[in-house]
């Protein structure tokens, strides 16, 4: 049976010593979000995840969702768990208090999401989609729509979806065919088919609010002719309770590789009543609000899976007695040494650990900037924070989900043959992790977003938000004797990243295929440097604590050693990536299509 304990100590370390989450309480509206309160909330959240959600993960995977006569049933226990979840107000944790939310920082929610995804990724899909719908509606919906629907999303009695993909188009949304016909009362009639709709139909809530992309009759072709509509499963009555069934129904659900307890639906809209969200033809803009938030959330899914995979791998490596250490028996009292004594096993474990902890720090930093971008009184600071988030979004999404999959694979590997067995529980993480690299824009698309959109924007202004603080940290820390061993490898990798950035920008201007060919390697290079930066900050904080003799010395000592592992064993991948990037597009493009 798999195990899971929320990594509260590491989260506290990241929040207090890396991100400086105590500054959150200085932001208007977050006055209550003191470190103490945040701690309490996360401890409660950890309990919920460990005790309520985690026990349903394997059973949910086994049972999956079922579809019968247009009705989708979630696995046993999910409805009760969901009721517990919303009863405690978790759904509205970071939502607007005016609509019943608790108004806590997004950073807190980001950390909680990691726990949920570790505990039960399939379950997490339902509240996650609702939050996406909440974000889009609260930013672009009319006052009337907000009054009618937001409260229900916040208290979790109703849930939300994002209906983008159609049978013939996913990445290229310009091709969308679903139609919206204006009605005299200001509403619209929506007709069309959407596929791959997560949480499109289920039995957890009394109503479901679909946010649907569709075309108005006078819509221009392409993405500039797409509008966003709110289409409820049940049309609300005047008193706000669900009324008559709307013209939307689930046609079937998909049988999938992973996240089996999350329903993935074909949704058929037939003259379904909907209301315009935002301006006509500006649906992509609203969609991007959802999508950007969702991309970060998917990145956190990867992190959650990495963490739980790591925990199980370590647990097994400690317990499994097999053979002896290469240098002779370490536990002569036992029939064999635990496999954790072996260098290669340790390499696997440390890889998962170093990626996971680095990603957690980076994820928290991005989460913090989300709050600054929204709440900081100084417009310039807000803008700069937003630019940092924009730049890091594709990296968080792609890098973290790659890490999640890698860590899950490592967990299976460390388990040996047992890892391949369903009951052990870790192979589920491999299957669950796989979708994270695909949905919300495949990781290849994330890489294109990074080199195509983020890199060149305003002659590299977004880049400044990352490169300048990293350059400054390196400069200061290189001077310090105790940090030089960490700062130097980072400086080398950073220089490679700078060079690659300049060259891709230059080559990409002349030939976009050059940028495209470098994209995914570049994203990985960027991501590795970003994690290296986090490790430099972490080791600095840990050394300070050790020197001062404060806190849990074993914890800080492990930080220093993991940092050393990262700088010595993982970061040097940047060299190979750099060489690959320099090789350009030709090796990819010269073989004729027909010759494949």
């Amino acid at each position, binding site marked *: 049976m798999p195990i899971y304990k929320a990594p509260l100590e590491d989260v506290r370390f990241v929040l207090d010593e890396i991100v400086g989450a105590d500054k959150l309480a200085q932001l208007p509206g977050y006055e209550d979000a003191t470190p103490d309160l945040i701690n309490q909330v996360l401890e409660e959240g950890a309990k919920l995840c460990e005790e309520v959600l985690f026990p349903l993960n394997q059973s949910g995977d086994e049972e999956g969702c079922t579809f019968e006569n247009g009705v989708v049933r979630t696995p046993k226990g999910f409805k009760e768990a969901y009721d517990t979840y919303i009863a405690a107000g978790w759904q509205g944790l970071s939502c607007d208090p005016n609509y019943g939310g608790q108004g806590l920082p997004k950073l807190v929610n980001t950390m909680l999401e990691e726990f949920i995804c570790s505990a039960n990724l399939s379950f997490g899909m339902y509240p996650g989609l609702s939050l996406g719908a909440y974000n889009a509606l609260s930013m672009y919906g009319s006052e009337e729509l907000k009054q009618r629907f937001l409260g229900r999303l916040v208290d979790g009695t109703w849930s939300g979806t994002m209906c983008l993909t159609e049978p013939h188009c996913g990445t290229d949304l310009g091709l969308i065919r679903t139609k919206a016909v204006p009605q005299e009362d200001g509403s619209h009639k929506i007709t069309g088919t959407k596929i791959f709709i997560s949480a499109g139909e289920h039995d957890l809530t009394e109503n479901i609010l679909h946010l649907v992309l569709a075309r108005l009759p006078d819509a221009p072709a392409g993405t500039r002719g797409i509008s966003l509509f709110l289409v409820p499963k049940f049309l609300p009555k005047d008193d706000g309770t669900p009324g008559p069934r709307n013209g939307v129904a689930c046609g079937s659900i998909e049988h999938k590789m992973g996240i089996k307890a999350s329903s993935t639906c074909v949704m058929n809209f037939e003259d379904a009543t909907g209301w315009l969200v935002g301006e006509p033809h500006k649906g992509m803009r609203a969609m991007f609000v959802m999508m950007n938030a969702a991309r970060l959330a998917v990145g956190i899914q990867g992190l959650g899976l990495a963490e739980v995979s790591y925990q199980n791998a370590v647990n097994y490596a400690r317990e499994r007695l097999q053979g002896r250490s290469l240098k002779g028996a370490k536990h002569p009292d036992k029939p064999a040494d635990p496999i954790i004594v072996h260098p290669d096993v340790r390499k696997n474990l440390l890889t998962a650990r170093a990626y996971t902890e680095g990603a957690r720090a980076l994820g928290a930093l991005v989460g913090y900037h989300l709050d600054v971008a929204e709440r900081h009184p100084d417009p310039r600071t807000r803008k700069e924070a937003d630019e940092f988030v924009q730049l890091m979004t594709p990296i968080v999404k792609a890098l973290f989900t790659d890490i999640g999959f890698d860590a899950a694979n490592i967990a299976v590997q460390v388990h040996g043959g047992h890892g391949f067995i369903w009951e052990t529980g870790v192979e589920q993480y491999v299957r669950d992790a796989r979708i994270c690299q695909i949905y919300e824009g495949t990781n290849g698309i994330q890489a294109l977003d990074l080199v195509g959109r983020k890199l060149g924007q*305003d*002659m*590299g*202004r977004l*880049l*400044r938000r990352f*490169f*300048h603080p*990293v*350059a400054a940290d390196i400069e200061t820390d290189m001077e310090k004797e105790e940090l030089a061993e960490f700062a130097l490898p980072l400086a080398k990798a950073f220089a490679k990243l*700078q060079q690659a*950035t*300049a060259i891709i*920008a230059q080559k990409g201007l002349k030939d976009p295929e050059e940028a495209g060919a470098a994209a995914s390697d570049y994203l990985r290079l960027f991501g590795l440097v970003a994690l290296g930066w986090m490790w430099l900050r972490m080791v600095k904080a840990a050394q300070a604590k050790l020197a001062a003799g404060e806190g849990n010395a074993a914890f800080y000592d492990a930080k220093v050693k993991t940092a050393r592992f990262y700088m010595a064993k993982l970061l040097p991948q940047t060299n190979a990536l750099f060489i690959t990037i320099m090789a350009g597009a030709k090796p990819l493009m010269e073989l004729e299509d027909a010759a494949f």
Partner: protein
Amino acid sequence: MQIKRAAVIGSGVMGSGIAAHFANAGIPVVLLDIASKEGDRSAIAKGAVQKLLKADPAPFMHPKNAKLVTPGNLEDDLHLLAEVDWIVEAIVENPAIKADLYTRIDPVRKEGSVVSSNTSTIPLNVLVEGQSEAFQRDFLITHFFNPPRYMRLLEIVGGEKTRPDALAAVADFCDRNLGKGVVRCKDTPGFIANRIGVYWIQTAINAAVDLGLTVEEADAIVGRPMGIPKTGVFGLVDLVGLDLMPHIAKSLLATLPENDAYRAAFREHPVITKMIAEGYTGRKGKGGFYRLNRAGGQKVKEAIDLTTGEYRRSEKVKLESVSAAGRDLKALADFPDKTGQYARKVLAQTLAYAASLVPEIADSIVAVDEGMRLGYNWKHGPFELIDRLGTAWFADLCRSEGIPVPALVETAAGQPFYRVEDGKLQHLTTAGVYDNVVRPEGVLLLSDIKRASKPVWKNGSASLWDIGDGVLCVEFTSKMNAVDGDIMAAYGKAMGLIGDGKGQWKALVIHNEADNFSVGANLGLALFALNIGMWPQIEEMVEGGQRTYRALKYAPFPVVAAPSGLALGGGCEILLHSDHVQAHAETYMGLVEVGVGLIPAWGGCTEMLARYSKNPKAPKGLMPPIATAFETISLAKVAKSAAEAKDLMYLRASDGITMNRDRLLADAKAKALELAQSYTPPEKTTYTLPGPTGRTALELFLEGFALQGKATPHDQVVCGALAEVLTGGNADITEPVTEERMLGLERKAFMELVRTSGTIDRVEHMLTTGKPLRN
């Protein structure tokens, strides 16, 4: 004959502008207008000189040139005409009044002096009617374009009796001394440029109305895509004045041949007539086809709706036809929408009209193309435009538009109007054969050299050319001629090739034929490098530039730069390091780095300090040269002419000025060869500088500025860094500072500034808006 003194009669916009330009050429000029009835009898001409001094863009290249203009009146001062070699008449376009004036001046003028009229519409044979034989021999038409200093075209027309030597002397004077592109025209209405230009304007307006285009759409077609200034046609009429158009039309209609196509094209549009009647006559009036509406405290660009005649908010247009066609003019004319149709109509009618006028208005197509290029700032003349379409394709276009195919196009029979044969540019004659395009004597064009040869060497931003007699020429080819690493590499390559100057190559000339010599260092590249924190690379860029510029300065061969247009920042600094600058009169030099939060660091501070220190006219003492350099650089002063650049010492007294752009390269090359005969590199300069005490003085001065609100917070940061450089850092007067040390200070200050957010904001703002940020 030689022209040493001149007179202009009529002190209106054209007359006074022509007088100012004589003064720009160093020629004393008498400016006469009618006598005032009361007070100062020369008040009108005097007032005109005052207006010249305030006009923008400035008619004078230097305010002191005004002293060369002697204002007077036509009653008391006619005797002054006895001293001048050339009298230009620029009075009202009325044959009777002109005739009366001619009879009055003929008896007093110097024997053998030339008289010319600046008429744009009255035929020469009408003007000389009834005048003396001598007058008729000495008379010609010299048609300047407005504003005379800046517009390069001069149309010159001789009559049957005009002395050929007079014609030749005036043409030569206008070419060399006034810097004009002189085009000989026949005595036909509107000569070349206006004849075609007015027809083009009329056609373009007609077609816009007929096809229902907005003025923005029309200008987006009949502008950039055709190589015409972006003002297009409606923007141009706003500049010229809507009210002027009916006058020109009337005059042309009175004199044009019976069957001229303009007669059929001429149309009065009620919307325009109403605009003129209500005072909407263009930029000089209440507004034109476009206006800036300042009502409500905001500046809103508005445009006229051609159907209703009402103003509405101006729309930025992005035409599908233009983006789809790219540089292909044919594709634009073939684009299946009304904007494509518009392009088709305007091109067909205008170009066919122009083609039908040779040989009626000029003997060769070369004169017609030159006229439209220099008189209307078209990038390509009509025949060059037809070549872009192909003569056969154009003939088909005429047929499909129901326009008779012009005889000359038939003659071309599918062959181009211009071709390159053995490296020589040739044009098609009316006889159907190709003749070489002949440049005036003493004109050397890089474009001709480029046609005839391959570059000695080139990279992405620069080429090296063999311009003959052992002189190598660096040409910038980067966007806006921005200076980058490739240009530095080209200098390096040139130095390698020339070596000690005793072999195949003797000297280097730095020149290009773009509108602007160079706008300075490539800021876009710099900003990107800066955004990703590539500090060592940025420092290397600064140091590399310093090394290259110094190497050129101390190279064992002469370096002569020949700029025209803007030479800013790093593009100005290369001029400061050249042994000699042969500047086009219209060269605008400036060290403008402060505008983007930086200081000149390719030796600009160091060189300017050396120049001001060596200025014999400066007050004695350590501080005056430092203060002057500080002022020039901190205010980012840009000279509005080569003459002004001498005042600011961006140019040395010994540097040369060439009035005619086409003669610039030849002059520079001659100078380079002259210097090469016995060349020794300059001596190194050392600087005696006050160090911190001097800096404190400058900082006090700066604080004063800040208190008056004249310096922003970041100005103080930038100027503080500049002060540190110019005072020699921690120098002290007992120890002279070397050039190397000065360059080190420039570099240090630059690297400090480049890391400040204030500077990054300025660079970014400049790149995104084109304007300096005042932060």
